[in-house]
């Protein structure tokens, strides 16, 4: 089995940690992993991405247009930006919370991501949109966006990993004091 996964968002949102969890989970299962991500200047509030390729046979860590099995978007606009990478019948997981760019605040624009979400819903059949802002408030932490999106990705079946794989990698890679919170987020995502 091979899977092409794209994570995207704005620098500082935690796409890199999510990508590390997926690659860790895949490695635990003995799968070959290749990945590429944005590092450097763009991390400061710019658009960032991670490409992940699970399974044998990939020479290149990058994914071509129309070849992603799943896009996990931490921000609506950034998800639209990378939508050309999605293959036909591909899955989109998206957080509905917009991140307003400084340029938009300066211009007095009221960018709120809704136009972006409409476009995604219109063009893609398999979409799970999560109001992460509301769920974070409900669960009392802003640090679980990662796990909410990952949980939804697992549930969609497009990730090629199951809940047990993710639980195991959380135990491996995340400090114990956050385990309970992360498991709670994962559990919550299952019922969305």
């Amino acid at each position, binding site marked *: 089995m091979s899977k092409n996964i794209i994570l995207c968002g704005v620098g500082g949102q935690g796409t890199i940690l999510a990508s590390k969890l997926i690659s860790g989970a895949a490695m635990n299962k003995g799968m070959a992993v290749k990945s590429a991500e944005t590092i450097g200047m763009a991390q400061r509030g*710019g658009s960032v991405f991670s490409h992940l390729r699970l399974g044998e046979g990939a020479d*290149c860590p990058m994914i071509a247009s*129309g070849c992603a099995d799943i896009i996990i978007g931490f921000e609506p606009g950034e998800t639209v930006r990378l939508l050309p990478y999605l293959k036909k019948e591909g899955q989109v997981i998206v957080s509905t919370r917009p991140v307003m760019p400084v340029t*938009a605040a*300066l211009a007095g624009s009221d960018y709120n991501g809704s136009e972006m979400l409409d476009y995604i819903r219109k063009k893609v059949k398999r979409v799970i949109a999560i109001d992460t802002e509301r769920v974070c408030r409900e669960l009392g932490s802003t640090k679980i966006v990662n796990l909410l999106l990952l949980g939804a990705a697992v549930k969609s079946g497009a990730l090629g990993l199951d809940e047990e794989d993710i639980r195991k990698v959380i135990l491996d890679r995340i400090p114990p004091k956050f385990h309970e919170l992360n498991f709670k987020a994962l559990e919550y995502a299952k019922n969305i």
Partner: protein
Amino acid sequence: MHQEFLMGNEAIAMGAIAAGVNLVAGYPGTPSTEVLETVAKHRPQDTYVEWSINEKTAMEVGAGAAYAGARVMVTMKQVGLNVATDPLMSLEYIGVKGGMVVLVADDPGPISSQTEQDTRHFSRFSKLPCFDPSTVQEAYDMIQDAFEYSEKYKTPVFLRSTTRVSHGYASIQVKDEAEYNKNLPEGFIKDTKRWVIFPRLSYQAHINIEARNVALSQEFSSYDKNRILYADSNRFPKKGIATGGFNYTYVSEALKALGEVKLLKVSTPHPFPEALALSFLTGLDEVICIEELDPVIERELIYIAGKYQLPVKIYGKLTMDVKNSGENTLDSVMENLTKFLGVNPPETSALTEADKAEMPELPVRPPVLCAGCPHRASFYAVKQAMKGKKTLFAGDIGCYTMGNAMPLDMVDTCLCMGAGLGIAQGIDHIEPDTSCFAFVGDSTFFAAAIPGVINAVYNQANMTLVVLDNSTTAMTGHQPHPGTGQTMMGDVVNKISIEKILKGIGLAFVETVNPLDHNKSVETVKRAAALPGVKAIIFKSPCIAIVKSDKCLSVDHDKCINCRKCIREIGCPALVLRDERVVIDDSLCTGCGLCSQICPVQAIGGEQHE
């Protein structure tokens, strides 16, 4: 052997350790930085690692150690190589005793650099051999090969990487510790005929270098990383593709969809494996070269085709069949190859062309200074103090280059490391009525700015130096430097004081101020600017990415008059509009307090903890 999941730069570092590297020196620069950091983290006890103050010094420290028989790696990004050119060009003639690999990471795009220069070209210019890995595994293997070749031919060699190799991750096969090579340096042996460069010695060395490179070209033709693949392709028997470095993976990926085509993979762009390339070209009618930055492989193939009078057409950047600037992508390479082969690209995207045309306008996200960054406060203080005056704000290389963004708009020039000082002086000499400022970060100050300050004082310039001291090398991920009092060996040493250096040079005005104290900062800038000669202000406040803050301010909407001065003046990413009102994003705000000092009605306050 066992499997590990490594970043390309980590693989290079672990490969160097496996090769028994004794000393590593370098200067941080994206995309090369993690190489040295990884060696420092995993170094065997007797391996010495340092962040040198700049690339020239790193190269010289490396040369000395290699003279003594140590295995040495020197690391930098492509523009750093420009700084190290002086010692390297002479070292080419002198040579080394222990293996010496110069790791240079190129940045096609460019993604985080000033130039799109190509180290493969530099290797031709300096006549030094160059290894160009395609994958993380190859990077691990080839750094070890590079040490062997370097020692065998007693010359420094390049390992050239590019962003996508350096920052790509893969699960690869690495050696167990028991398999590591151990190198015990013999020590420096005095021999003036060998180690002291003189015109006569250089003449003789030049003859040897030319002969060596002919021999190396032969040897590289049978090097296992240089290969002809799919030689018996019968779908396109008269066509061929030449590539090298990371672009090999783009091509191999595209060929999975398009079918096999005879392929030349070049892993040693210099000396070029001529015999291998000749056998590749023979019998072909058309060849396309897929490479990034300069048309290095393309020119070599044109030369070989001419030399042996082969009737083959070579396409690439020179013929405009491959774009001649910027980064290639899987999609651009697929387009190049389908056009060259006369076939249709596969249609797999969820979006049709019509769908793409309907896409809403996407948010534009230029990189900006972080919320709470003290540089924002420093720039804003100078801007306020100099309002209405004729000014020049020369910027430099670092996070603070982003002070150019609206609404700060405080970077009028930016050229290369340390150049802002010289530029400010040059403009001052031509336009004496302009108040000239040069902004420089603390790491850049040590790396490249001190000669510029001395020059300004000696040559009687009028200018104000603004040192933005956040006690780290922030842009490249927080490396220590002489002002931080830490070394890569984990030692705590005396901090070198920027203030004392400036006073020692003889500046009349040197003052240190906290930029987050807005009124005091403005007042200090006004006093400095009014004086003649060379003045310096050190804005000292730590990078918020190191000193994590748990403070957060908020807007009191009963007081706020919605004038939006806070957003308009400083552009902090934590200040956002929601339902037509200014709110502070609590996931970003660090409570730096700059906005609260700007708000005309004191509507911003509080110190909520999360």
